[in-house]
Every structure is written in structure tokens, then in C-alpha cells.
């Protein structure tokens, strides 16, 4: 008997999501922030896939998850390039130092 249902997946997704958000919020390292973003995306992805498995969403959920994965890879590449540039300009990777645009 399967006692595992949609809710379980949603809970795991939620945990991943919140971990990602918190990671984004408290990490000073730019790459740490980036990892937070990846976690958030994965939490969302997990939801998509679970919905596609357990509800009528079907193929759409998987396709969306696929797109998210692909775009996340793209985003990671760009973000890392930005981080490298940032490091080249500031000699640090601390995002708190990136406050030149403050009011």
C-alpha cells in the first residue's frame, strides 16, 4: 500500500523552497545565494513533477520542470559569470559589498 501521496511531495518541495529562500537571505557569499536559488527552483520543480504524477496536470508539469532545469542551468552560467566579474572588481565575493546603488 502506498501511503505516500501528493502532500508528501509538496511538503518536501516546500522544505526545499524555504531552505533555498533562507539560504538566499542569510548567505553573504554570492555563490551561496546562487545555491539558494537552485534550491528554490528545485522545490518548485518537485512540485511540478508531483502534480504531474498525481493530478491531471500530466505532461505539462514535466515539461515545465524540464524548462525550469534548462533555464536554471542558463541562469547559473550567467550568475557565475556575474559573480566572477564582481569578484574581479571588488576582490571579494561578499554580496553585502555590492551596495554602490544604494540610495
Amino acid at each position, binding site marked *: 500500500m502506498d501511503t505516500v501521496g501528493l502532500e508528501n511531495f509538496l511538503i518536501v518541495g516546500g522544505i526545499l523552497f524555504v531552505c533555498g*529562500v533562507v539560504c*538566499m*537571505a*542569510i*548567505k*553573504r557569499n554570492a555563490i551561496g*545565494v546562487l545555491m539558494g536559488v537552485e534550491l528554490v527552483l528545485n522545490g518548485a520543480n518537485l512540485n511540478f513533477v508531483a502534480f504531474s504524477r498525481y493530478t491531471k496536470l500530466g505532461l505539462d508539469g514535466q515539461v515545465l520542470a524540464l524548462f525550469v532545469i534548462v533555464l536554471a542551468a542558463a541562469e547559473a552560467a550567467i550568475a557565475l559569470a556575474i559573480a566572477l566579474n564582481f569578484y574581479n572588481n571588488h576582490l571579494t565575493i561578499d*554580496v*553585502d559589498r*555590492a*551596495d*554602490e*546603488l*544604494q*540610495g
Partner: protein
Amino acid sequence: MDPKTGETLAKLLTAAWLLPLLGFAVEIFAGYLWSRRSKAAAYLAVGCIVGAFLCSASALYLYRQLPTIPVVHHEASHQHGKAGHDETKPVHGEGTVVAKEEEHHTDPAPRMHSFSGTHYVLAKFSNLKISIDWYIDSLTIVMFAMVTLIASCIHVFAMGYMSEELTEEYEDHQVHTSHGHFSRPGRFYKFFAFLSLFCFSMLGLVLAGNIFLVFVFWELVGVCSYFLIGFYIERKSASTAANKAFIMNRVGDFGFLIGLMIIWTSFGTFQFATRTEADGQKQLGLFDMVRGADGKLDLQDEPGKKAVLLTDDHDHPLLAADGTRRSIPYILLIGAGLGVFAGCVGKSAQFPLQTWLPDAMEGPTPVSALVHSATMVAAGVYLAGRFYPMFVPEVQLVIAYVGAITLFVAATIAIVATDIKRVLAYSTISQLGYMMLAIGLGGWAAGLFHLITHAFFKSLMFLCSGSVIYGCHHVQEMPQMGGLRKKMPITAYTMLIGVIAICGLAIPGVDVFFGGVAAKLGLPASFQNVMSEKWAFSGYHSKDAIVATAMTYAQLNPLHALLFILPLAGAGITAFYMFRLWFYTFAGKPRDQHVYDHAHESPWLMTAPLILLAAFAAFCACGGEKGFLFTMLLGSEPAHVADGLAAGATSKLALPSHHQIHDNHATAGFYALVVAAVGTFTAYLFYGARQFKLNPSEVQSRFPWLYTFLAEKWRFDDLYDVMFVKPVHIVARWCAATDRLVFDGILHGACRIGIVVSHWDRLFDENIVDGLVNWVSNVTYGAGSSFRYLQTGRLRQYVMFIVVGVVLVGGFGLFWLMLRIRPS
């Protein structure tokens, strides 16, 4: 064979027509692609025009191979015409008998073929259409040959004459600027481009098969003439002359346009000849509609409603839509004729529009030779000839008088002119007058005959004068020349040939002698014909024909005796001033030693055309009335016009017929010869003789008023100045004053008001509008300044904001949901 030959002829002549256009296109766009020193453009132009000449010559050869049309119908009408003539002029019955006897002898040239067709339809309005037509008869072909031959010679001559333009830096000594002489890049290529364009236009004019197309090319040659007269556009005199020529021509062309409008509205076609289209539809031509085959105008002679009824090519009446016969009011036909003739007057520099031609001598001499003597100005005569069947007797009388007056006036002015080119220019006007006179008098073939011969000897003389000018380093005043024949013998003697030709001198009695010899020797008939003609250069034959026509006309219409007296006198005057020119220039002693010392013969490039043209000037009319050229022209003569006039008896005028003219030929020739000889001799006495020399200045001081009158060109320029220019100036001055005072005043007032208003406007703008905007911006700026502290620039803080925002929104949302759910 006929249509096929017609096609071949059309193709040949079209090629000859379009070749110069090709040349023009290349020359004007790629003329100095490599260098302004390159003669490439000239070679191209010469190649094109020589190619055109070869095409024309082949066409001429082909055309001569065609059998002539049997003259049955023509004979009949001729007879008929004679009969009518007999009725009107019983006095000359004797002449008819003579004519009858010599019928086959005096009419050696039966009608020749004519062809026509369409290249391209430009516009079509139901059954009316405007198209690019061609019309080929012997006149077309002769004109083509003449134009291309002369143009070829002149192109070659111009290669030498214009060689000074072969430079990057041409200094114009006649234009003075604040920095000395004006200098510009050479325009050698441009000159030849315009020459090519001109040739194209002229050939197109000749080939055109409808009057509208003639008008198009008419304007094109006008434009070319404008460009070429104003070739030295920086010279004030040149640009003025170009403008003058153009404006004078506009006056004539205005008449032409009116004529065109009348024709278009009355006939619905512009086409000359009747022909069957490709779709089998018959397209009636103007000539067939107006006149029947016998040359008669079908008059509807109601009082106050005189009209000409239109017929088709088989003399069947043409019906309008309502079943009545189509007709054209007689007055309109006169208007059309006069209108078209007005165009001819302008183009051929006839009285009263003759003043532009002498000024046109500002152009380079080859231009004068080609455009302003040999071909373009002859276009007027050509058109008059081409349009001849459309002229009613009244119009013809006008033409005759205009021609007569022109020839006399121009000849008298030529006596006192001293500029070598101007003498030739007046001579040209005078000779054109002869041609017009001939056409007006019914001597169609004579007039066009003179057109051809004149073209040869006048272009020859112009080129000679060009050679003189070139040799004397741009000295044009005859009083500074003299004795030049030793320095430039070829020029001098070719010029002499031209002078003799134009004067119409001949050796009397030689014809009889040689004719006898030829008969004795048993030479072929054609040789006998040639030998028994007078030994004279071309001008004699053609002018003789005109004088003979005039004499016959004067005999038929004694009221118009002046039309005989004026040309006769003109012949004497012509001889006088032409020999004056030659003696002045080439004979005697040098008057200006400096000019004489530096004079030199022109290079072979320029003298070779002279020799060729001299040969043609001398011998092109060989055989006179029985000669090749005249026979050719006669083949296309609308001879039935004269007969038709006589038969119709619509007018009190009578036009001479061939045999009548022939009767008077010998007599007239004798008169003309005597008069010319007297003129020549007088000239010799004045300017050539070493002993018994008469002094021209004495004559001049004896009749100062006459001299001044002639030197000021009969004061036509003054007259026009007073009549047109001054009034226009006065009106313009008034307009200017009105403009300055009234309109400018209004404008200035409006401006002042505007300034005052805008001053107030500015105050409003600066204080109220700007104040409002500034206030808004200040407030915005203040708000932004206070809000900017929210923008910390800390990434993680923003994330927190987002999360907290989501939590808050979620919390409120949940709260609200609970509130909603609980009551239910």
C-alpha cells in the same frame, strides 16, 4: 517585297536614329571616366554618327532599288488639274500645250513609295492614340543621309576645333572674375554628348510619323540648341543668347501647340499617313482626311459656315456618330496651319522671330555649322514641307510673304555685318527665307531642294569660318583679317566653292555646248542629261528653281509680284555680301599684321571635312532638275496640292505647276544669274579690286542713316525692346513696388504683432508654466530624496523584504479567508 523593304528601311533608319542616343548616354555618364584629356567621347560620338550615316546610306541605296509607282492616277489628276487651270487662266493656254508635249520629259520622277508604321503606343484613349510612329518617304531618306553626312563631317571637324577643351583646367579668356580669368574643367565630352543628343533628336524629328512626335523632338532639338549655344555658359553673352533663342522659340512653339490642339480636337489623330494597323484596323492619316486623291479640299461653302469635309483615303466621306459628315471649319484649318507655321517661324528664325539666330553664334562654330545653319533651323522648313498638304492657300500666302520679307531683311543686314559668323548667320536666315518662300509659292520640291544644297554649302562655309577663327586665334572680326588665303589655302578655296555655290553663279552657255558634245559622243541618256545642265554648283540649281517658281507665281498672280522681286533682289544681295566676306577675309592685304602673322592653316582633322563638304556643296545638285537629288525629292512631292487648288478654285490664288515652272526656268535662271553676277562684280569692286576700287566707307558716310539702320538690324531688337521688354519691365517694377509696400508691409506688421505677443507669451511661459513644472519636479525630487533611504543596495535585505512581504500577504489573505468562511 514592298512591306518587307519598308520594314528593312524602318529598321535601318531606327538604328541610325538610336545610335546617337546610345552615344549620348555613354558620353554624358561616362564621358570623362578616365581623364578629361581623353578623346574617347569624341571617338564614340564619331563612331555613332558614322554608323548612323552608313545605315542611312544603306537605306538610301535600298530605297533607290525600289520600283517607282506607276503614275496612272497621278497623271489623271495632273490632267485634271491642267484642265482646271486652263479654265482659270485661259491666257496661258499656250503654256499647257507646251507642257503636254513635254509631259514625259518634265515629269521624270513618278511618285515614290512611302512607308509608315508604329514603334510603340504611348497612350491610348479608346480609339484615339498617341504613339511613336515612323514615316519614310524619299524626303525622310534624303534628310537622313544629309543630316548624318554633315553631322559626321562636323563631328570630325569638332574633334580638332574643340581640342582646347581637352584639359582639366580650361581658362576662359572672355570671362573675367575677381581672380582674373575664369577657369573650369574642360567640357570636351559634354560637347560631344550634346552633339549626339542633337543628332538623335534631329533624326527623330525627321523619322517621326506624327505631328505630335515631331513636336516632341522639336522641343528636344530646341533644348540641345539651348545647351550648345550656352556651351560657354559662364560668358554673359552666351547665356543671354541661349535664353534668347529658347524664349523666341517658345513664342513660335506656342503657336505650334495651338495648331496641335486644333488638329487633335478636329481630327482625333496626329498621324501623317493612312495605314492599316496590325489588328486590321485602318488608321486614317491627316493628309488623306483633308485632301482627296486629287488634292482637292472638299469644301462646304455655306455663308458664314465655311468648312472642309473630311474624307477617307479612298475619298469616301467620313461620317460622324450622328450620321452627318465630319468636317472641320475652314477657319480652324487656317488656324492650325498658321499655328504650325508659327513653330516653323520660330525654329527657322523667320521674320518676325529672326533675331535669335545671329546671337546664337555665341556657340562654338561647329555648333553653328551643324545646328544653326544646316540642320536644326532647316527643321522649320522641313516641317513646313512635311505639313504642306495641310496648308490652305491663305496660309501658303502668309508663308510666302514671311519668307520673302525674311530673305530680304536678313540679306540687307548681312551687307553691313562685320563679324564673319554673323554674316553667315544672316545669310542663313536669308536662305531659309528663300526656302519658306518656295514652299509658300507651291515650289515644294524647290524649297526642299534648296534646303539640302544649302545645308551642304552653309555647313561648309561655317566650318571654313571656324577654321579661320581657329587659325586666327579666335578673331572673328573681318576688318582684322585679309589676305589669309596665302596662310590657309585649303580653307580659302573650299570657302570660295561655298561662296560660289550660295551665290548661284554659273557659266552660261556651257550647257548647250556640253549637251551637244554629249549627244555627239552618243553617251547614255543620263549622262547627256547631266552634261546638258548648266555647269554650276549646287546653289545655282536650287535657287534657280526657287526663282523660277516665284516668277511663275508672279505671272499667275500679278498682285503678288513682290514675291518675285524680293527674291531676285535677294539673289544679288546674297552674291554681294558673300563675296564681300570672301574678299574681306582671304583676299587683299592683311589689315592686322599681328593676326596675319599668327594665322595658320588648320590641322588635317579639320580640313578633311572641309574638302569633303566642298565636294558635296559643289556637286550634290548635279544635274539640276533631272539630277538625282531633285528627282528623289520630286518623288515625294504632294504635287496634287497645286492641282487641287487649281481644280477647286477655292481661292483667287493659283499655284504654279511643274510644267509652268519649267517653262520659266530658263528665263528665271538667266535673271538670277545676271543679278548674282552684278552682285559679285560689285563686291569685287568694293573689296576685291586693286584698281577702280570703290571705298565702302564712302558709301557708308553717304548714307549714314541707312548704314545705321542696317547695322542695327532694322532695329528689330529695339522694337522688341520697346514692345515687349520695356512694358514687361514696367509691369514688373509695379509688381515689385506692390510687393514691397503692400505685402511686405502686411508681413512686417504681422511680425511685429507676433513679437509683442510672444513677449507676453514668454512671460506666461516663464512664470506660470515653468513654475508649475518646476514645482512638480521639486516635489518629486523631495519625495525621491526621502524615499531613497529605502534603497539599501543590499541583496539579502531585498530577499528578506520579499519573503516578509509574501508572509504578510499570505497572512492577511488567510485572515480574510477565515473571516469569510467562518460565518457560513
